[in-house]
């Protein structure tokens, strides 16, 4: 099992993802420089968090033009698992691999804190090890996580079960108070129609070890390993 971790200029969670894949799961992982078009035989591709191109202009808006993105798109089209975390999610939206867009948080400030998330789709390659309907805690850290899309797109996402994670209270109730950034319908993460492309604002890479106080994010990476093993 090999993870390919895309490195844009300004990515800064690439090493965190590499650490989870190699040190915690014993998988192979390789960095893929944004100029490369070869995914180096990756079984799954991660677009990590950070500030690709400084998030200048708009988060993800420049990174989508990196040569590597064409390879990522064709990998996804063939059913390859692609995970976009935080800035990686923003890049997936800008690249059109997932629908919708990000606005600045409704509080107009960067927010770094733990949030509760309801797992609504356990059929993706990154969520199969979470029981559907379970509540997990993960940290967020972003300025632009206020997800938005036209109402019909949101309806389609809901109808097709493509909302993967939703912000909620600790007991699973979806409330406005539990929504840290104003995202439409409390959406924290979504997937593509086929389910193989997943994007989320929270950081599973930052909560994969007990020593750091929380290991609930490890299951996202472990799910991918299980999904690959099952193929």
């Amino acid at each position, binding site marked *: 099992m090999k993870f390919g971790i895309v490195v844009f*200029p*300004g990515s*800064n*969670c690439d090493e965190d993802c590499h650490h989870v894949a190699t040190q915690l799961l014993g998988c192979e992982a390789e960095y893929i420089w944004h100029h490369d078009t070869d995914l180096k035989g990756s079984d799954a591709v991660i677009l990590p968090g950070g500030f690709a191109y*400084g*998030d200048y202009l708009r988060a993800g808006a420049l990174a989508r033009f990196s040569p590597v993105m064409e390879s990522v798109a064709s990998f996804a089209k063939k059913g390859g698992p692609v995970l976009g975390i935080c800035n990686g999610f923003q890049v997936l939206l800008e690249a059109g691999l997932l629908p919708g867009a990000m606005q600045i948080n409704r509080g107009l400030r960067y927010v770094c804190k733990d949030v509760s998330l309801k797992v609504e789709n356990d059929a993706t390659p990154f969520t199969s090890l979470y029981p559907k309907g379970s509540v997990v805690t993960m940290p967020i850290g972003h300025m632009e996580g206020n997800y938005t899309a036209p109402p019909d797109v949101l309806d389609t996402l809901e109808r097709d079960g493509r909302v993967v994670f939703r912000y909620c209270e600790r007991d699973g109730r979806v409330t406005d108070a539990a929504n840290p950034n104003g995202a439409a319908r409390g959406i924290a993460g979504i997937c593509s129609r086929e389910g193989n492309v997943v994007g989320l604002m929270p950081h599973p890479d930052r909560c994969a070890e007990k020593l750091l106080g929380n290991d609930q994010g490890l299951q996202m990476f472990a799910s991918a390993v299980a999904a690959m093993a099952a193929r």
Partner: protein
Amino acid sequence: MTITEELIREHNLSDEEYGRIKEILGREPNLVELGIFSAMWSEHCSYKSSRIHLKRFPTTGPRVIQGPGENAGVVDIGDGLAVAFKMESHNHPSFIEPYQGAATGVGGILRDVFTMGARPMASLNSLRFGRLDAPRMKHLVDGVVRGIAGYGNCIGIPTLGGETTFHRGYDGNILVNVMNVGLVNSDRIFLGRAEGAGNPVVYVGSKTGRDGIHGATMASEEFAADEASQKRPTVQVGDPFTEKLLMEACLELFQTDAVVGIQDMGAAGLTSSSFEMAGRAGSGVELDLSKVPVRETGMTPYEIMLSESQERMLLVARRDRLAEVLAIFHKWELDAVEIGTVTDSGRVVLFFDGKIVADLPAAPLSDRAPCYDRPRAALAPPSAPFRWQSEAEPADYADCLKRLLASPNVAEKSWIWTQYDHMVQSNTVQRPGGDAAVLRVKGTKKGIAMKSDVNPFFCAFDPYRGGAIAVAEAARSIAATGARPLAITDCLNFGNPEKPEVMAQFEAAVRGIADACRALEVPVVSGNVSLYNETDGRAIPPTPTVGMVGLMEDVSRHVRVAFRRSGDLVAVLGETRDELGASEFLRTVRGRDEGPCPEVDLDAEKRLVDLLATLAERSLVASAHDVSDGGLAVALAESAMQGGLGATLSLEPGVRMSAFLFGESTGRAIVSFPPEHEAAVRALAKEKGVPFTAAGWVGGERLTISAGSRVVIDEPGAELAALWRGAFARALESADVL
């Protein structure tokens, strides 16, 4: 151009200093040379008023790899690893333009650390603001926090909090002190030295613009009212994305053996980097300024040498490896240009358009920089004992506690630190809000604790003790997490050194820090001095910020502030004296800004530090918390609130009730532990010579404190927590400027 008296004044040089320049050169300087001397001999770069006193600091120790004088200090942590760290001020620019001032402060300290070959691991900041209702103050708070966040978050270095205090003494001069700690292989440390005649001098990073010209000189002057807004052109603009590229490129470069020396272009830009690198190596350099990448046409040699544009580095490469060096920077899409060569002439010679525009000896600019033993007034006696002895005690202690928990200095500051990415790099073991931040060191079992500290209110009444207490309190906080202090950096913020009373404060604070460092065996490995923090002749309270780094061998044994289990026992370690002077209680509840500063017993502090670290190492305690601002009652409330648990505590005061609850006697901590560990904790405290007082137990939903037979505080924990957590945001967001 002839050098006139007016030009000399404009360059902030005294007649005596100008005379010294002529003596060194044996002639009149030209304008470029005058600018260079002015920057190098500014207070900011030359430490001319402080140097003579800084010699007091102990700077060596078995773990010290690099002491003061380089870009950052380096301390060995074993396993072939070391930590590089430093603290710096960006006070003047942050007051003028808070976002960019604070942001570039972060950028500068990061460069100081990664220049050494270290990957920056985490930042802290020590912020001092005026009263929230002072003019521009909420704007400054908001801008500084956003600036720190904007830079640190983007570059991907976690900001693990720090400390923030508010006082009228900072109404006209806020303080922004930023600290960074990096991790480096102890055999791959890089220094700022221009060695090897014939080696190329390479300029890398952002292009040079007209921003920040004379920043170092500006930071060495007082403000007059309304002047701050006119100084804006001297504040630099930060670009964290470019710095991220620069950092990654440099760290990639350090994997090779192609670099001889490297230094960031911080204050006084190309001037200080070139002269210091040549000066340290005893070599010389020749630079062709026409080759420096510039942002706009028409820039003069004077502007190029004095620009403080951000995100630039100067390095010396091995001649035969130049192509490799340039290739790495070009991969990261950065400018990298050979602008000159190292010589053995001992001179810095600058060319522009084929003509020599400056020709100066390198070493004398540093070695023969002015050094003043400025006159010092006798310090005011450590203030007459406060008259509270004769005052009536408050009627309602619970009300006092609530007012303290809601005061901006004590209230929880998550409004600030949730704006900082404090988790990137996935090493954060203890997030902001604890006694000290704790990081794990990947690939080892070790942990690093870091803390910035000073109580300026103590320093205002007794700078000697205040300086000593800053070190002691940082050590106590570090030890409470389970780490042992390694070394400190410092950032000494004071008023105008030409005033004898300010110089007296400075000298006393330095002496206090030095004595405490000796007693606690923590050397000073780097630091910074910020003087002239005055507006309209009013100086800030003396604020010698201490940044301490500690090491724990087994990070899994780290200890938090929060109570953990119902049924655990609580004990107070150390002695509570009859002290209320300079306390938050006195200021917030009594509205009186009076001393005296509490006493400090450095031997007792050392014993307590050893006890706290040992308790953690043996996994005897469930929680530990240093007692400081707001006293014992606030410390107990914080452990309870952070743990989401109540506590029932019963103590014999032994001193006046308000001093018992809210006094800020030094040398104390509170710990909790399971009942089966009580005998061991007591025995260890006795062995280490630290007074142990059983205080009660953790549990229930109320915080109940009895003194003797009298219940003095009995409040629902959740209500206290709501007050403490919400107070700071409410105070800020009631403002319309945010």
